[in-house]
């Protein structure tokens, strides 16, 4: 795709910014293909994404269907041909629930990750670029949020406004953007002192242009690292909220599956019901951790760190 021949008329500014973004993205992609653990993480992620998209095709039954054979409810059946992951204490198919559960985790992770990314980056760049009173005010909000316990905060909001997926994600975004804002701000602070930013200002570039064309593209790796970690964190957090019995009521998630195994006392025997959701959450979260590490390794090859 050639930007100069795009049918849409782009201003000089936009074209310059787009070119910078595309350059960073291409570099990243090329380096990405050379890493084995990166490919593995991407493979795991792709598997769950496909599972979520194709859920109605893959799942043999409706996740809420109750199985009764010869008047006998199929409660807590171990894995068999008909039920590859066995059945729950409510005689439902674990495999179908597990397949549909991937949708919730991926959706929650993605939506809250993108929302936190937008909010956190905006606040961080604005605070770090303008400094002064704007910075002071915004950072006080962030400081205060750091004092709020995340899980209890989400619990309170969800209890007040109702247990739905939308409310859980909203509550999560409200608390999680603090890390993003702090990290982006401190990087913006040092970027704003760089000669190229001063040069841009000297040539008469507007604040908005400096932020979008000169600062933001340099933040891209950091934004990607933070976003993948936020996604991973959101997935665990949603599972925890669901485990406490305050998960979305409209769908079955991996967290709600685990809640029922625990509260029904099925963990005494039904390993086939406890293992799939937990292993899947772990794998999904792990693949996001590895993706973030790959971005870090590519952009900062010296260290090979694992930051959490």
């Amino acid at each position: 795709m050639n930007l100069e021949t795009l049918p849409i008329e782009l201003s000089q500014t936009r074209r310059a910014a787009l070119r910078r973004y595309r350059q960073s993205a291409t570099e990243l992609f090329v380096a990405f293909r050379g890493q084995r653990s990166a490919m593995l993480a991407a493979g795991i992620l792709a598997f769950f994404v496909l599972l979520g998209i194709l859920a109605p095709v893959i799942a043999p039954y409706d996740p809420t269907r109750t199985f009764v054979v010869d008047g006998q409810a199929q409660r807590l059946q171990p894995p068999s041909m008909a039920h590859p992951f066995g059945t729950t204490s409510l005689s439902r198919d674990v495999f179908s629930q597990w397949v549909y559960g991937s949708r919730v985790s991926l959706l929650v992770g993605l939506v809250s990750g993108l929302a936190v990314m937008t909010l956190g980056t905006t606040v961080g760049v604005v605070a770090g670029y303008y400094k002064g009173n704007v910075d002071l005010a915004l950072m006080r909000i962030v400081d205060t949020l750091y004092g709020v316990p995340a899980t209890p905060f989400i619990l309170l909001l969800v209890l007040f406004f109702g247990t739905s997926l939308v409310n859980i994600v909203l509550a999560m975004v409200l608390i999680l953007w603090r890390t993003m804002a702090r990290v982006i701000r401190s990087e913006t602070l040092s970027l704003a002192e760089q000669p190229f930013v001063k040069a841009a200002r000297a040539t008469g570039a507007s604040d908005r242009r400096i932020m979008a064309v000169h600062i933001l593209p340099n933040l891209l790796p950091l934004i990607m690292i933070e976003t993948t970690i936020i996604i991973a964190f959101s997935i665990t957090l949603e599972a925890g909220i669901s485990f406490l019995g305050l998960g979305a009521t409209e769908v079955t998630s991996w967290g709600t599956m685990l809640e029922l195994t625990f509260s029904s006392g099925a963990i005494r025997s039904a390993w086939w019901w406890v293992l799939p959701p937990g292993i899947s959450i772990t794998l999904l979260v792990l693949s996001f951790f590895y993706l973030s590490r790959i971005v870090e390794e590519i952009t900062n090859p010296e260290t090979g760190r694992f930051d959490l």
Partner: protein
Amino acid sequence: MSRQRRRYLLKRLALSLFSLWVVATFLFLAFRLLPGDPTTAVIAPEMSASAREELAAQYGLNQPLHVQYVLFMRNLVTGNLGVSFQFSEPVSDLIVAKLVNTLALTATSVVLAYTIGSMLGAFLASKRNTSIDIYGTGLTLVMYAAPVFWTGMLAIMLFSFRLGWVPSGGIHSVTFVADSFWDGYLSVDFLYHLVLPVTVTTLYFLSVPALTMRNNMIDVLDQDFIEMSRAAGLSRFSILYRHAARNALLPVLHYAAVSLGFAFGGSVVIETVFSWPGLGKMMFDATLAQDFPLAQSTFFLLATVIIFMNFLADALSVYVDPRAAVTE
């Protein structure tokens, strides 16, 4: 130097108090914006009309909102947290016992996690890029990625139900009678109940210090003084654990305080899995039971602990590295 440090600490303290005030205000508003009767925030619904009015007057609930706000703040500062609906006991009495329980679990596992974790991190750094490092780091990450309530469930499944080694939850056996306050925490019975939750949470908290320590060690090992020590003929062990580890450990200390605060926030989930009668579980149960005085106070206490720990982390870092006070 020390004046700068004092100024920095005072500023941090002021900011912490500001955060506490904002959290308190949030709680005040949240519990009064509830749908329905605002008096439900402090008064049990099944009380008689006259008792309700008396209590409403005592809490100033018949007053305009700004007067109520002043009253709320005054009660909070003086520790008058109201009476729990469920237990009909003063909230402050209920909370103190739970705070000790939560502290016994989280402080133990955070201390263990930071001790073991930093040693593990130093070890992994010394084996940098070997397969021990790659699999060790991977395993550490798996423990961090796995939801702690799930690993807790697995541990209960295996060690309590299958093998029968440890109890599946609670803090004491049913038959246990404590002769004194300390007896409750220094008894074999308590330790017996503590083993499983502490092991699971320690493994979970371990990842942050281990990975931070590994990163710091890798940075430190690249510095000139390490090269010098090597040239001076010091042994590998001495270079790693006497010279490099000391320098790498300092930033890890900062995270220890933050982690303890974080552990308090996560206590809701952890204490639910292990039926541990602590603050988090109490906050959750109180919120579900609509016991608002109790829910409000436990939430505030959790926030206070976190804010205090964050302050402590800042204070620790200026003592450990005085440059922090100047750059702020």
